[in-house]
C-alpha cells in the first residue's frame, strides 16, 4: 500500500509540473470520496458485470497441463472481457469517477491500443468526448485497434515525438492534460504516473485477484503456488497479484519483455536492465543511460514496450515479494502459437510473455502444484504482426 504521499517504499510520489498539481489532488480527493461510496460501487459493479462480462473465468488448461507434464495450469481469462483485455476494468472505474467529478472529456495514452479501445468504449457508453494518443509506430503495428477507436467515436492522435511509441504517447497525453484540465480527465492506463494513479488503477484491477482467489478456492480448495502475469507498466500484473501479496506461500512472477534479449539494447525489461530514476511522474526503475536519458526500448509487444515500471512493482521487487523475469520476443511468439494450438486460445502477444514463462516453469514443478497465468488480453490484434514475424505478409 502507498503512504499518503503515494510512496511504495522509495518509489512513487508525484513528479509533475505545478500546472497539474491541483488536478491530481482533486482526483485523489474525489477518489477517496467515491471509492467506498455504496452507490458508486453499485454502478461500477453493474458496469463490470453486465457490460464488461465479469467475473472472468478461471479456466483449467487441462491439455496444456498434460503436455507440459508438471504443475496444473489455470488461465485467468481477462481476454474474454468486453473489448478483449483487462484494460476495461480500470477504464470503467476511472470513467465513472471522471463523470462524477463533472468531467466531460477523457484523454488516454495507448501502446497496443487495448487501453485506447477500452477508453473509447467507456467514453461512447458514458457520452464523453475521447482523445487517444498513440505512438505513430504503434498505429502501424496495431492498425486494427486504431480503426476500432475511431469506430467508437474517439479521435486518435499519432505521436511522432521521441521513439513514437508508448512512452511518447504518455508524454503527449500529459502535455495535453496541462493545456486542458477543467473538463478533461487523463484516464491513465497503467499502475504508473503520479500518485494517485498507481493506487487508483491498482484498486480497479484488483478485481482480477479477488476473483481468482475465490475461484481457485472453489475449484481446488487451496491457494495457487504461483501467479504469473506479464508486466509493462504492470496493471494486469498488480491486479493479478494484489490479493495474494499477504499470502507469502504464493509466488508472484512478473514477466517483462526482453525483446531481442536483456544483453542487447533492444529490450524493454526494466527490472532486469534498468535503474532507479524519476520519470513520468514517479520514482521507479527505468531503462536509461548513464546521464539519465530515457532509453529507446524495444519489444515485439507494443503494450510492454515501455522503459519504466509501476512503483508498486518496483517496491515488490525491492522487498523480494515478487520476482521479475525476462521473456524474449522469440519465446513470446512461440508461446503465442503454442497456446493457440494446444488450448484453442489466442493470447495477446503481451499475455504470451506470461504464458511463455509458465511453459518453462510448469515442467519443473510437481503435478500437485498449481499455477495461475493471467491471459490479460486476446490476440486477434496481433495476428498480422506475428504472421509478419514469421515471414508471412497478410492483410488485416
Amino acid at each position, binding site marked *: 500500500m502507498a503512504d499518503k*504521499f503515494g510512496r511504495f517504499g522509495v518509489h512513487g*510520489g508525484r*513528479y509533475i509540473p*505545478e500546472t497539474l498539481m*491541483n488536478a491530481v489532488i482533486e482526483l485523489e480527493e474525489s477518489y477517496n470520496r467515491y471509492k467506498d461510496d455504496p452507490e458508486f460501487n453499485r454502478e461500477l459493479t453493474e458496469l463490470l458485470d453486465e457490460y464488461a462480462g465479469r467475473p472472468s473465468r478461471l479456466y483449467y488448461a487441462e491439455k496444456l497441463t498434460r503436455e507440459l507434464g508438471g504443475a496444473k495450469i489455470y488461465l485467468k481469462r481477462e481476454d474474454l472481457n468486453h473489448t478483449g483485455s483487462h484494460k476495461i476494468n480500470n477504464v470503467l472505474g476511472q470513467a465513472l469517477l471522471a463523470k462524477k467529478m463533472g468531467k466531460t472529456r477523457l484523454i488516454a495514452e495507448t501502446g497496443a491500443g487495448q487501453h485506447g479501445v477500452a477508453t473509447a468504449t467507456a467514453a461512447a457508453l458514458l457520452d464523453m468526448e475521447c482523445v487517444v494518443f498513440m505512438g505513430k509506430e504503434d498505429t502501424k503495428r496495431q492498425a486494427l485497434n486504431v480503426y476500432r477507436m475511431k469506430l467508437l467515436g474517439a479521435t486518435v492522435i499519432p505521436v511522432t515525438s521521441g521513439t513514437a511509441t508508448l512512452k511518447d504517447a504518455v508524454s503527449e497525453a500529459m502535455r495535453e492534460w496541462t*493545456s*486542458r484540465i477543467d473538463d478533461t480527465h487523463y484516464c491513465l492506463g497503467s499502475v504508473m504516473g503520479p500518485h494517485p494513479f498507481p493506487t487508483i488503477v491498482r484498486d480497479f484491477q484488483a478485481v482480477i485477484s479477488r476473483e481468482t482467489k475465490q475461484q481457485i478456492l472453489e475449484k481446488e480448495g487451496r491457494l495457487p503456488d504461483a501467479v504469473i502475469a506479464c508486466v509493462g507498466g504492470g496493471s494486469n500484473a498488480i491486479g493479478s497479484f494484489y490479493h495474494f501479496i499477504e499470502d507469502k506461500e504464493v509466488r508472484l512472477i512478473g514477466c517483462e519483455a526482453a525483446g531481442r534479449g536483456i544483453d542487447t539494447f533492444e529490450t524493454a525489461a526494466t527490472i532486469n536492465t534498468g535503474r532507479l*530514476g524519476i520519470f*513520468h511522474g514517479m520514482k521507479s526503475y527505468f531503462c536509461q543511460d548513464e546521464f*539519465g536519458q530515457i532509453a529507446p526500448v524495444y519489444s515485439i509487444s507494443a503494450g510492454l514496450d515501455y522503459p519504466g515500471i509501476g512503483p508498486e512493482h518496483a517496491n515488490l521487487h525491492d522487498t523480494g515479494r515478487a520476482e521479475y523475469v525476462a521473456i524474449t520476443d522469440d519465446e513470446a511468439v512461440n508461446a503465442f502459437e503454442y497456446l493457440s494450438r494446444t488450448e484453442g486460445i489466442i493470447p495477446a502477444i503481451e499475455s504470451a510473455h506470461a504464458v511463455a514463462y509458465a511453459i518453462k516453469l510448469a515442467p519443473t514443478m510437481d503435478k500437485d502444484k498449481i499455477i495461475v497465468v493471467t491471459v490479460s488480453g486476446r490476440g486477434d490484434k496481433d495476428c498480422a504482426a506475428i504472421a509478419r514475424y514469421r515471414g508471412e505478409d497478410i492483410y488485416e
Partner: protein
Amino acid sequence: MSNTANERIKGAFAGGKAFIPFITCGDPNLGTTKKLVRAAANAGADLIELGIPFSDPTAEGPVIQEANIRALAAGTTTDKVFDLVRDLRKDVTIPLVFMTYANVVFSYGSERFLSTCKEIGIDGVILPDVPFEEKGEFAEICKKYDVAQISLIAPTSENRIAMIAKEAEGFLYIVSSLGVTGTRSEITTDLASIVKVVRENTDIPCAIGFGISNPAQAKKMADISDGAIVGSAIMKIIGKYGEGAVSYVSDYVKEMKDALR
C-alpha cells in the same frame, strides 16, 4: 563570490525589469551555445537559463522538444554542459541557472550534480517536474551547496501560491498559461492577481515565462512582475539559423531588453 545564490540572483533584478533568455545547451552544438550565451549576456540578458537536454521533456512544446533532440543527437551530456559553464565563467558574470528534468539531476547523483554546480558557478536549478511536495528530494543538497531551487507557480496553482511563495528561493517562475512551453498570440491568465499573492508572501523576485515572444508581450508581463522569461522564441531562431544564429539571437535579446528598460 562571497554572497549567497539568493543575493546573486536578486542582483539580476536590481537594475530594473529583468530579461531572462533560455538556451538549450548543445543545440546545434556546444561551441555555438558558448557563443550564444556570451552574445546574450553582452546584449543585456540579466540572468540566463541553461537547458540541459533531456530525452523526454514533458513540460516542453514542440520547439524546445526538437532543440533537446538536436542537442542530444549532437552528443551533449551533463559532463560536457558542466565544461561549457566552466568556460563561460571565465568572463560571464550574470547569474546562470540550469533548467532540466529531475532525472538528469537524480541519475547523475544529486549530491554530485549540485556540488559540481557550486564548483562551476551555477546559481540555481529549475526542475519543472518537481513540484512543491517533491522538492524535498533535492532541497537539503541545494542548501548545502548554495544552489537556489527555483519554484514554479502555474495559472492553476490558486490556493497553493502562498505556500510555494513562502518557501521560494532565487526567483519565482510564474507560468503564464496552461499547457507546455511555446509561443502564444495572447496570454489571458489573470497574472496580476497571482503576483499580488506572491508579493504578500515573499520578497523574492518573480518573472513570467511561457508563451512570450515579442517586445510588447515582454513589456506587458514585466510591467506586472519583475521580469520576462523567453525560451521557445529563441530556440526557434537557433533552430532556423543553427551555427549562424548568434547575431540574430544577440539582436533579439537586445530588442527584448530594450523593451523592458
